[in-house]
């Protein structure tokens, strides 16, 4: 069974992002970039499928700038067998990324596509679902448990009310939520080995994909700051304030 796992290069989750001084976009100059944490969980799940003998090959794919090779090397160090970079310097929207991934699916014919439920930069939470529509495959988003047996995936999903279990015939798309697994750290020997693994580069043009953006970013702003509050001395004062000043309890 072949697994395609998609990864995205994003601002590291520990970085506090700031707007550019002209407020046109996020300031990404000299900011640490990493693999999107949800994508890392997807890679880990792929590696575990291979370790269980369910998967035979893991292909990592990223759509982004040349530097996305770093994130693909991370995926290779974690256990992916080879990688594909769909290289573009444009900032693509989820629909365009999904179209690129669809083209990769057509050439690679994976049995399952694993990806993160969302990227922590745009917080769109769209690409997996869109790839589902474009390929016609079933989708199981926000997965917290994945089992593969007899050509079917059984997925436990995290939904607002609790947990939902779905069964999907393969090929299917599964997007990872936080609790799917805890990714390992890549060992030094594996990082060295990853440098020699195959990494092919293609472009949206080569794939015949229209990547024109539909949405224009007009600007960014900082969210409204909350006015500083006060410290209360004890519970009695707190209860008094909540009753008589804020009037939120009676």
């Amino acid at each position: 069974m072949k697994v395609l796992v998609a990864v995205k290069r994003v601002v590291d989750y520990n970085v506090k992002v700031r707007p550019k001084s002209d407020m046109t976009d996020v300031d990404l100059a000299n900011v640490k970039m990493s693999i999107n944490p949800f994508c890392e969980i997807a890679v880990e799940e792929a590696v575990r499928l291979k370790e269980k003998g369910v998967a035979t090959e893991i292909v990592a794919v990223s759509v982004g700038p040349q530097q996305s090779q770093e994130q693909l090397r991370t995926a290779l160090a974690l256990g992916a067998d080879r990688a594909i970079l769909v290289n573009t310097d444009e900032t693509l929207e989820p629909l365009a990324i999904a179209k690129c991934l669809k083209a990769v699916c057509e050439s690679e014919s994976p049995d399952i596509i694993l990806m993160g439920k969302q990227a922590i930069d745009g917080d769109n939470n769209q690409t997996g679902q869109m790839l589902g529509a474009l390929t016609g495959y079933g989708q199981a988003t926000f997965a917290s448990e994945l089992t593969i047996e007899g050509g079917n995936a059984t997925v436990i999903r995290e939904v607002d009310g609790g947990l939902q279990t779905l069964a999907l015939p393969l090929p299917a798309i599964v997007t990872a939520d936080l609790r799917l697994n805890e990714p390992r750290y890549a060992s030094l020997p594996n990082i060295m080995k990853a440098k020699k693994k195959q990494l092919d580069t293609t472009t949206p043009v080569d794939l015949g994909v229209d990547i024109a953006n539909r949405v224009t970013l007009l600007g960014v702003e900082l969210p409204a700051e909350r006015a500083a509050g006060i410290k209360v001395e004890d519970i009695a004062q707190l209860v008094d304030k909540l009753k008589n000043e804020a009037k939120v309890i009676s």
Partner: protein
Amino acid sequence: MSTLVIAEHDNSSMNVATLNSVAAAQALGGDIDILVVGADCQAAAEQAAQVDGIGKVMVADNAAYAHSLAENVAPMIAEIAAGYSHIMATATTTAKNIMPRVAALLDVQAISDISGVVSEDTFKRPIYAGNLIATVQSSDAIKVLTVRGTAFDAAPADGGSASIEAVGSAHDSAKSSFIGEEVAESDRPELTAADIVISGGRGMGNGENFDMLYNLADKFGAAVGASRAAVDAGFVPNDMQVGQTGKIVAPDLYVAVGISGAIQHLAGMKDSKVIVAINKDEEAPIFSVADYGLVADLFVALPELDAAV
């Protein structure tokens, strides 16, 4: 300009979260219709028809739509969408699952989690876990939007008497099937709908200590939440998580107990009207967003609070 609001429901009743999307549609202006896609969902449709200012309610009632499977519901919505300029749904896990699939079927770029309507084609939305707000303009003919519920006050649930009509055909893709669900049963209000939320963090120490919060919550008629740290530590299940990676809440009163205030938690609760923080570390970032902060050991403060109310 006309907006189609996709109802969130469990077939037997409409979820009030739908009313936040109706409010966002009203902010946009123009005609508003509601689409209910479900199975034996007439009761939910009748509730939708009561919402004030709705043109009509359309019902796609078929067994294939019983569990809101995206592969079946998305083509149903896409089939109806052609007649509208905007398709909206409140950003619940159901809508987040379905709406991008609808957008791709229509070949449009969806806009997720809008927190403001600037104009017919321009919207505000949080990015980077709410650390920045982006203003974005869509050039697509049909705008497919999910709405951040906490950013729009719910529209009135009654006062209307819209007509109800049956629409659509059955889309049964067989690309996924429903096996089961584990719904967290609770007598307390739902986190995202509660007027008061009391949340515990890693400082609670273990799951048993959350009983103190449950007792307090029952006195206030409050919901109980948790930080991601408390969930990751295994104190409580994930459906209690408040934060960027959990639920986004904006109650009248939010009480954070033993929560340090990581960025990802603040992103899920900082739109609450009044915030109280109880933490023994006076440097904890949670105090920077709290209206009332109490520097105290929660194991002393909680019993006192319990006794005082």
